[in-house]
């Protein structure tokens, strides 16, 4: 029952999801709309619990076991609680504040301010590090060992040079040639690959609906 009932739910709800596209009857469509707008939305919102709970459990365990770099786990936990309190009680629009004041004089600590001045810089900079790792990898690992690798390299060079405006002055036909590479041979290769991916995803979705793929059930419970 602990496994059969969820598998039955997946099948029934899945067939309903597919049927709603295939059957244009107004009653089916209106039930589908209510299901999406109310049921699915609320259940999906609660799924945040999984992520937050996992993070908190991970960091509490690190603190309890005094694992490597455990003091930093306090930063995550405190930052999570402080920003959640500010957001929940301070409101999300500075023009419509909540019960918690979110500024001291001219210094604001509204959730939007935290987003703009903490989240954006940190997230953007973490991804900006990839530029350096990519450059280092290109220098150390990108080798024209055979004809195919050389072909890849040449195509990459043409695209890199074609992507910048200066090339149009130095080698006028290059940007258009780069665009042709993207529009013709690249399209052919990516389309062939995407057919395989699409059919694979279709097969996986079908396996989930039919209960053949059961990895999402996790362990435990018979």
């Amino acid at each position, binding site marked *: 029952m602990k*496994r059969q009932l969820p598998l039955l739910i*997946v*099948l029934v*709800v899945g*067939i309903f*999801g*597919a049927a709603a*596209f295939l059957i244009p009857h107004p009653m089916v469509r209106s039930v589908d709309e209510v299901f999406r707008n*109310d*049921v699915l939305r*609320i259940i999906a*919102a*609660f*799924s945040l*619990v*999984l992520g937050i*709970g996992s993070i908190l459990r991970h960091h509490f365990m690190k603190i309890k076991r005094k694992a490597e770099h455990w003091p*930093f786990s306090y930063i*995550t936990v405190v*930052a*999570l609680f402080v*920003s*959640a309190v500010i*957001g929940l009680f301070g409101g999300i629009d500075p023009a419509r504040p909540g019960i918690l004041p979110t500024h001291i004089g001219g210094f604001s600590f509204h959730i939007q301010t935290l*987003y*703009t001045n*903490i*989240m954006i*810089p940190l*997230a*953007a*900079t973490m991804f*900006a*590090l990839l*530029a350096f790792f*990519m450059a280092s990898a*290109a220098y150390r690992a990108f080798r024209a060992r055979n004809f195919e690798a050389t072909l890849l390299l040449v*195509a*990459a*060079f*043409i*695209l890199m040079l074609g*992507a910048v405006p200066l090339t149009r002055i130095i080698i006028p036909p290059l940007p258009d040639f780069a665009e042709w*590479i993207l529009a*013709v*041979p*690249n399209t*052919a*290769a990516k*389309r*062939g*690959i*995407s*057919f395989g991916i*699409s059919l694979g995803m279709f097969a996986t979705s*079908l396996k*989930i*609906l039919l209960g053949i793929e059961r990895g999402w059930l996790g362990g*435990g*419970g018979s």
Partner: protein
Amino acid sequence: MNISTDPWVWIAAILTLAVFSFLYRENPFYRFAEHLFVGVSNGYAITFTWHRILVPYLLNPVGHGQKLWLIPIAIVGALYFTRFIPKVSWMVRFPIAIVLGYSAGASIPRSIAATVIEQLKATIITRASFADVQQGIWAVIILIGVICTITYFFFSTERKGALKPVSYVGVIFIMVGFGASFGYTVMARISLFIGRLQFLLGDWLGLIR
């Protein structure tokens, strides 16, 4: 030089430099920034999930005596909490089943239509493809490339006879495609770094007008 006097810009700049310090070597400043990011981003998600989903779609209607049938739905959603209670953790399968089932079912007919049938229609050559002769020639090349690429990924039989050269042509197309992706990936990664420098040099130090 026109250095910013906004304390938050200074905080953002210091956090940016803390993350960049990882390039020299891992250090406590980077680790602090990393942990701070995880905490604040989750607090942000909690905020908006509460204010823009749970309050308007659940608490407000139920609080006004409307849509009381949402209460059992909310209970099903709350079953996500059972993930952290070992004795009843199996109950988390119910809300997952509903979301996963609908998503999988809804995607099947639509993604077949969008990613297989429409793409097949675009690959097939008709007389209309040659309305512009040049575009018609490119369409033929694309058709050949798609067939050869798919042939390359066919591993159920030994590559001999006609299959071998066809697969090799597929390899050529794939290498050109991956080269194009790599070239654009270089552009993407550099752009992300340029964005940060525009902030540091422009918004913080005022060196870029």
